[in-house]
């Protein structure tokens, strides 16, 4: 009987956590959707200003490298966090509106997940980039301000995507745990 009570209590706890995750997921998703929408619109404005030939994939560098990547735990395939080749706050916008890209930004749940991952890569390279590393320079030195804002918008969205991936993983784990607990109760 007490075991059933424990199982039922666990189910309740998991359900509450799942609902919290869902609420957070929806909130972040709306936020990132609005940010991306604005960034794409800023890009369209920049193209209109500078010319559609000047801001196009034709000017991408053949040696392009990602300014940020995502660390994934090899064992559990969980997204641990972002790895930034350059300080993302440099390109987040004039009000520095990007989320903090340091390890402090990882919440307790991510810490717990990353601790279970024995081979997690949490290195972080936050060094000042050289001018030629900035993709903005592919389109010239004198780019429209809207292009800089668009870049800032896309860069600031990365942390949202990382959190969304983590929440999705967490929700999946919770669903599995609830299922197991229900099966235990039925048994």
């Amino acid at each position, binding site marked *: 009987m007490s075991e059933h009570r424990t199982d039922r209590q666990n189910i309740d706890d998991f359900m509450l956590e799942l609902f919290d995750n869902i609420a957070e997921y929806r909130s972040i998703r709306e936020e990132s959707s609005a940010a991306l929408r604005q960034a794409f619109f800023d890009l369209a404005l920049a193209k209109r200003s500078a010319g*559609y030939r000047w801001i196009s994939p034709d000017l991408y560098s053949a040696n392009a490298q990602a300014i940020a990547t995502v660390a994934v735990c090899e064992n559990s395939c969980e997204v641990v966090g972002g790895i930034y080749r350059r300080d993302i706050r440099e390109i987040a916008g004039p009000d520095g509106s990007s989320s903090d890209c340091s390890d402090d930004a990882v919440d307790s749940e991510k810490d717990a997940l990353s601790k279970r991952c024995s081979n997690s890569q949490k290195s972080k390279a936050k060094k000042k980039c050289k001018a030629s590393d900035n993709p903005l*320079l592919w389109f010239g030195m004198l780019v429209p301000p809207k292009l800089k804002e668009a870049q800032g918008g896309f860069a600031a969205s990365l942390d949202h995507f990382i959190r969304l991936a983590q929440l999705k993983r967490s929700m999946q784990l919770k669903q599995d745990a609830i299922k197991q607990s229900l099966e235990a109760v039925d048994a």
Partner: protein
Amino acid sequence: MKEIYFNADAGYLEGVVRGYRDGLITKPQYSNLTQCETMDDLKLQLATTDYAPFLQNEPSPISTSTLSARCTDALVAEFQYLQQNSAEPISKFLEYITYGYMIDNVVLLITGTLHERDTHDLLEKCHPLGFFDTMPALCVATTVQDLYNTVMVDSPLAGYFRECLSAEDLNELNIEIIRNTLYKAYLEDFYNYCMACGEPTASIMSEILNFESDRRTVNITINSFGTELSKDDRSKLYPRLGNMYPEAQTRLARVDDMDQVKAILEQYSEYKTMLLGVNLNASSGGVGGNELSLEDRFFIKEVDLNKEAFEQQFHLGVFYAWLRLKEQEIRNIVWVAECISQQQKDKINNYTPIY
């Protein structure tokens, strides 16, 4: 007396370009375009315009970049018809117009080479109006001296390179300086040529080119905020003509933010009127009713000047004016397309109407 003989040399082509002008999209047509829900709807509406032959073979769904490219093909076809049927002095005038596109192509190739892009791909992306024979050889140049000695010395842009030869290596900063220095030299040369053409070409083109120079001055200033471009270098990029030359340019070379730019512009009556109601931080304005940005105001002013060129006859300015109006029309069409594809219907009316 020149007007009497103008039609003998240029009457046919002036008639052709006025016909082109009559083919520009009107307000009712823009209204239909802005009511489209999908890109296929937009393509269907454009089937009633001069762009129909260039869009009909494009598979659906059409992207905004493809739409821009096909509309540009239509413009190129019409311009090349004018070139092929022109004689002096129109042929020289049309040639001058192509120098601007040549400069863009040169910069595109140099930039692409710096970024190790494939040469063949780059040549295909060049503007057709700016093609010249030695252009493919640009890809081998690594310094400005190489660029000049190997390639540019035999090109129509050779004379504009005089002020660029102090730069050495080709990096992003120097390429931008080269681009703007070339364009500055070209604008000044074109202006002198137009003045030598006599009236009424001289007065019509001087107003248009002075405005173009002022707009470039303001755009260079605004776009240079927060970049490595020094204030001395910035001032060297300003064309030496326009209402802002030399006094306002000297002051604009020293400013650091948009408020200072606005304070300088407000001291000129033609720009003070333009700045009324402008929100310098607005993303976009236009007919849609939102606050107008400075750029929108510049577009509107440019359209007004180019439309005025058609009010007179027997001058070469109609060819330049038509080309700029056509480019604005393409900008409008692509803007509408972007708003449709991004589901930004509240911004769709933020184009610059022409007729």
